[in-house]
């Protein structure tokens, strides 16, 4: 039976996170004043983002993606390639390439499971040669972002349930699948496969991985 390797993105394959993507967008607003205002506002909000993420990833998503409200879809997509070349690509961990290469040699399907927005993840998935991906999608009305995500919102348990459905649809044996993440919020995504690995884990995930005897990998 076929199997897959599921990767989280931010902090796992590269050192950027959602805030980096938004900060890039904020810096590249039309007009200097707007850029400065947006950037400062993002910086000021970072403690709130951290607190929300620590409490619940879904709460973080609610707060964070509201900041996209009013952004033009065209502009976001236009900036995505630049964001990838200037911010994300240099931040890919050197070990990520080898990990994916070895994984592909095993015949595993390479799948990105991320809470990042589609237009930031697509260039990276293409660059790494991943076979499939699931991301979050901003809701747009009349070409403007509403600040909400389209369901299902990829975070925590939703990632695991998406993986289950995906495996069933694609005829994959989850007990032979691999999963990689850096964050405690992705515990369900790790727990659902037979070969979970904590990658560059935060303190809580590292302790959990030790308790579960999961491999702990440092790609940095």
């Amino acid at each position: 039976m076929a199997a897959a390797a599921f990767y989280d993105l931010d902090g796992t394959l590269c050192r950027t996170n959602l805030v980096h993507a938004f900060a890039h967008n904020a810096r590249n607003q039309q007009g200097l004043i707007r850029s400065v205002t947006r950037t400062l506002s993002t910086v000021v909000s970072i403690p709130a983002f951290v607190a929300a993420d620590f409490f619940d990833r879904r709460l973080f998503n609610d707060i964070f993606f509201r900041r996209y409200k009013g952004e033009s879809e065209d502009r976001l997509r236009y900036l995505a390639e630049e964001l990838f070349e200037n911010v994300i690509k240099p931040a890919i961990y050197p070990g990520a390439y080898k990990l994916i290469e070895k994984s592909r040699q095993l015949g595993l399907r390479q799948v990105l499971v991320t809470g990042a927005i589609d237009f930031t993840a697509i260039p990276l998935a293409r660059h790494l040669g991943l076979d499939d991906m699931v991301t979050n999608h901003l809701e747009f009305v009349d070409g403007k972002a509403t600040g909400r995500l389209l369901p299902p919102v990829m975070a925590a348990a939703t990632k695991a349930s998406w993986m289950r459905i995906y495996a069933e649809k694609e005829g994959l044996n989850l007990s032979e699948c691999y999963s990689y993440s850096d964050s405690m919020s992705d515990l369900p995504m790790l727990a659902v496969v037979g070969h979970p690995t904590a990658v560059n884990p935060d303190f809580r995930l590292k302790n959990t991985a030790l308790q579960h005897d999961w491999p702990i990998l440092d790609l940095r």
Partner: protein
Amino acid sequence: MSKRETKALRGPSPRHKEGDEVVYIDSESAPRLIFSGEDITCEDLPIGTRVVYGKAPIEGLNNPGAAIRYAINHPLDADPLYAQLAPGMRVTIALDDISLPLPPMRTPDIRQTILEILLELLDANGVDDIHLVIANCLHRYMTEDEMKRMVGKKIFDAFYPDRYYNHDGEDPDNLVHLGKTAQGEPMNINRRCVESDLVIYVNITLVPMDGGHKSVAVGLCDYESVRVHHEPETLLGCDSMMDPPRSMLSTKIERQGAIVDQHMKVFHIETALNNRMFANATAFLGKNEDEFSEFDRMKYEAMRFALSKLPTPAKRKIFSAIPSEYELVACYAGKTDPVHARILAKLYDQYMVSIKGQSDIVIFPIPYVSPYSINSILNPILVQVMGLGYFHQFYRGKPVLKKGGALILCHPCHDEFDHKFHPSYIEFFNRLLPETRDSHKLQHKYEEEFARNPSYIEMYRRGNAYHGAHPFFMWYWGEPGRQHAGKVIVAGAKNAHVPARMGWDRADSLTEAISMARSFVGPSPSITLMKWPPIVMADVE
């Protein structure tokens, strides 16, 4: 600690002995000190038990530097090293990793002494394209601190990290396929070594299975090359691994070594050390207990008291901090085969003790140290490889244990693993062993999966983890012992599930283990205690 263990060690009196190394227990014999992991127990053994001690250390060479210089200037079947050097040459010096010697020796490590001489010679001959490669094969990478300790600060600062590094057996870009033996065994070797004008291998041969062609052909190869001989059938074809002419492992490695010799110019420097594992304050641990002085007894009591008050990790730290006091007793250089033959002869002089006949019951103390647990934990798989692999194989002629006899291992068998060094061992122990202990089934069903696991590969390459296939090799290593012993009993195991999973019986104490063994082998059994450490091997008549 039982009451028996607190009993005072008695003073010297004449004993029934065969030479200095073989002693028979009688009614007046002192209890014996027996390593059990990080503890040392004091045990009364049944009358008539044969205790085999290591030989007294051969006196170390007074001037190791002079011996090394002599060896490289008067090599066997090769030109002197200076005559092989020319300005602009590309030279790679490969070194044995931290698994040798055991425990790590006091500084300066003999490798540092050799390197200082070599680098001076290379510099004098205008050779400056020099790399130092640790021949770790699929062993864990040595840490920065370990690498510094091994070669000294001066060399470390000059070469690390760009020109002093661990061999990567999982980087296809840095491996070269040299060919296959007539039997189809592949030989893939470190690219830098293959592309060098000269490879100098600096070796420490601790036991007779080390050294020789194993240094380059195994130390610098990859999984595909090593799996052809680190497998159950090859290991079952060894009688024993310590006797190269009767070892299928050596035969296969020599075949691969012949390919290496066809493609690479190797100048082999091989050393033998004596077995002065303990010295000064801990010298009593290598002595016959009947010959203990009052001071030795006091030192043991003090050590026993201190160990009883410490948690296991602290005991591990203390033992890790005590280096061995090994001294150089021989150094030869030149072509691999003649050099290795001379070193083997020296090792046999140091380790081989002649004993008459096999025993029904054999006791192996399993100490805190193994080649794979330096600065780490001797996990249950490693306990297995020490007992059923190495110690069982420490013979020439016949095993010390009769076929179908009872083997007693002394170890607490903690269910404890090092997540950083031994991640694949954890999965092997918890996922595979409950399903099967059959080496062939494990090999065919699971070895490939572990060896190709991307997480384990990257943990090996980017961290300090043993390769994913390593726990399999360790399990196969124990296969000859597993098939030879009729029963394995682990004395002093602190839990029931580890021995059960390994397929062993357990006993609270050595006395209980001996009783269980007696009931298995029948009345009036012959019993032998192999008193490790230090290293002792048996020439069984």
